[in-house]
């Protein structure tokens, strides 16, 4: 009997403890790894007197899988643009109406009517950037603004290339190089793209997300990468230059959103509003080296960011291409191309 009572007491204690852990005065953020400025967290904690817990993921799919199971305990997630409509459709996000919040006026008008959340009823901009590639201009001194360097590389770059280990980014880049539509299900065009990729593969050394490390350790001289990563790599290897391929390159935006079953709804809303203040958005930019989409944040940015060639898209370069999520049939086709490429 005593044993039972002790157990009951322990259980009760555990429940109380767990209760306090997720109670008031907390905010649980689930974000990409190495993507949240610790100073930002400290500032929010001080201003609102809450304890912030940070947890990280490395792909939208992993975040989605965890959140779909329900009662994840998280309040804030940071999905990429194409993941937002999926989450809205599956009823995972709370309609917190950032467009009626105090700081909404700071959001750059360019980022208000976005395809993933027209009018911003669910999300606020976190950071945005582009995906192209960066190349060592000492190794290759020709014109770098063409995707040919990845798919039909010159002699000096052959075998010195890292591609992202990312199905949509690689296949979309190949579609752009050939001038075909994204989210393509035209079989002739896909066959052509498959052939292009299969031939290009022999010139690639690796396919990996760890692009900064690959570049700075001289494992490769060209890597498909994101602009912020390219900037961080350049700081250690100054001869690197980020390319703006004339065939086009990808644009993306990650967005903060509140989960429908957020245990700390009020804190989460405060955080959304907090993130739209220019000085706070700038903290994230300074940390991750991407632009924030909040007007006026430039004033608070570190100097290196303001004139960084990775951030400022030059005149004459194409507009970044924000690709919408492809239909399942197209994803299935992409899967087969991808598996064939990597067999």
């Amino acid at each position: 009997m005593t044993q039972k009572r002790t157990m009951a007491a322990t259980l009760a204690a555990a429940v109380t403890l767990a209760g306090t852990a997720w109670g008031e005065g907390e905010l649980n953020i689930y974000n990409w790894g190495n993507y949240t400025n610790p100073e930002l967290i400290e500032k929010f904690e001080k201003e609102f007197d809450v304890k912030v817990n940070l947890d990280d993921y490395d792909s939208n799919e992993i975040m989605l899988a965890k959140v779909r199971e329900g009662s994840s305990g998280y309040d804030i997630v940071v999905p990429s643009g194409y993941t937002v409509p999926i989450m809205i459709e599956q009823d995972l996000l709370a309609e917190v109406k950032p467009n009626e919040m105090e700081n909404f006026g700071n959001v750059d008008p360019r980022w208000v009517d976005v395809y993933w959340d027209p009018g911003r009823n669910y999300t606020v901009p976190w950071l945005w950037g582009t995906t192209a590639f960066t190349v060592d201009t000492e190794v290759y001194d020709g014109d770098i603004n063409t995707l040919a360097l990845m798919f039909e590389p010159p002699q000096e770059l052959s075998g010195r290339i890292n591609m992202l280990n990312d199905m949509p980014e690689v296949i979309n880049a190949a579609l752009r190089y050939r001038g075909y539509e994204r989210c393509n299900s035209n079989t002739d065009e896909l066959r052509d793209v498959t052939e292009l990729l299969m031939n290009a593969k022999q010139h690639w050394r690796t396919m990996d997300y760890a692009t900064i490390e690959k570049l700075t350790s001289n494992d490769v001289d060209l890597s498909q990468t994101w602009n912020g990563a390219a900037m961080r790599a350049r700081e250690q290897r100054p001869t690197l230059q980020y390319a703006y391929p004339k065939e086009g390159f990808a644009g993306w935006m990650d967005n903060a959103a509140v989960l429908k079953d957020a245990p700390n709804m009020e804190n989460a809303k405060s955080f959304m509003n907090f993130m739209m203040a220019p000085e706070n958005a700038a903290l994230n930019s300074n940390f991750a080296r991407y632009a924030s989409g909040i007007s006026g944040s430039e004033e608070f940015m570190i100097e290196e960011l303001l004139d960084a060639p990775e951030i400022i898209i030059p005149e004459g370069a194409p507009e970044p291409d924000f690709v919408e999520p492809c239909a399942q049939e197209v994803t299935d086709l992409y899967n087969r191309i991808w598996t064939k490429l990597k067999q």
Partner: protein
Amino acid sequence: MTDVTPQTATDARLAEARRQTMGAARRRRWQLLSPALLIIGLFGLFPLTITLVYSFLSPGSYGGVRWEFSTDAYVQFLFDRDIFDDTLSFSATYLNIFARSIGLALGATIGSLIIGFPTAYFIASKPANQRNLWLFLITLPFWVNLLIRTYAILLIIRDEGIINLSLIWTGLIDQPIGILYTDTAIFIGLIYSYLPFMVLPLYASLEKLDFRLVEAAYDLYASRLQVLRHVIVPMAKPGIVAGCILVFIPALGAYITPDLLGGGKQLMIGNLIALQFGGSRNWPFGAAAALILMVVVMVSLTVYVRYSGKEGNGRG
């Protein structure tokens, strides 16, 4: 039936009592077994059942499953649906990935055996009080996380790593030899990671080896090779079998090592399965691939153990 003789009545009572004792014993046996059964059921059979069920469902959009029966996952493994006319044709894509993984795992097993056998023999031939030290040294790397050990290998064999830099410094080569991001790198990584799994069981059987038998063989004019083939190897057989199994299975499912050291250009089984639950959004196929892998391993193990067991008996 009314005039039951005392004899049969006693018999019946006895039988009843026996039945009761046996019943009690059976109940007790089940009670004692229940923790083990619970664990096997909860952590073994239950997840496996989920995997099996999921492999026969349809993929949900954006991950997950739809509750519609489908054998597509298994069909997809061997056949490719033509994008033009929807006809099925044989496709070796996934078989190639499996074959590649099995080849790499086999190579790693053989490599570990070649390195592990002399090591284990060396330790077994040391005086008893020194053996523990040697075993300790073998298991020492295991105290470090696999990811970190793999990164350490990466730093050693990369173009600007210790091996290449020292070879260039000595003037033996003037260009770095590209070991990293090749199959060789994967072999090195797998062998390094799983070598202790080979050495320990080998040592366990070699330790029991009666070295007088080796001496006797020499006395009978056996050459060194003959001693190895006819005396040492047969006696180490249980260790060889156990070691090979312990290296082969984790090497086959290896995920981090091929990804980091192989450069991620080619899928291994582990990566293929992981991809289905991530970017490919096809959980049923991932579940099916995992089950196919399990069946392949189970069948090959059964064949291997039976075959090697028989041979061992024949010699003994």
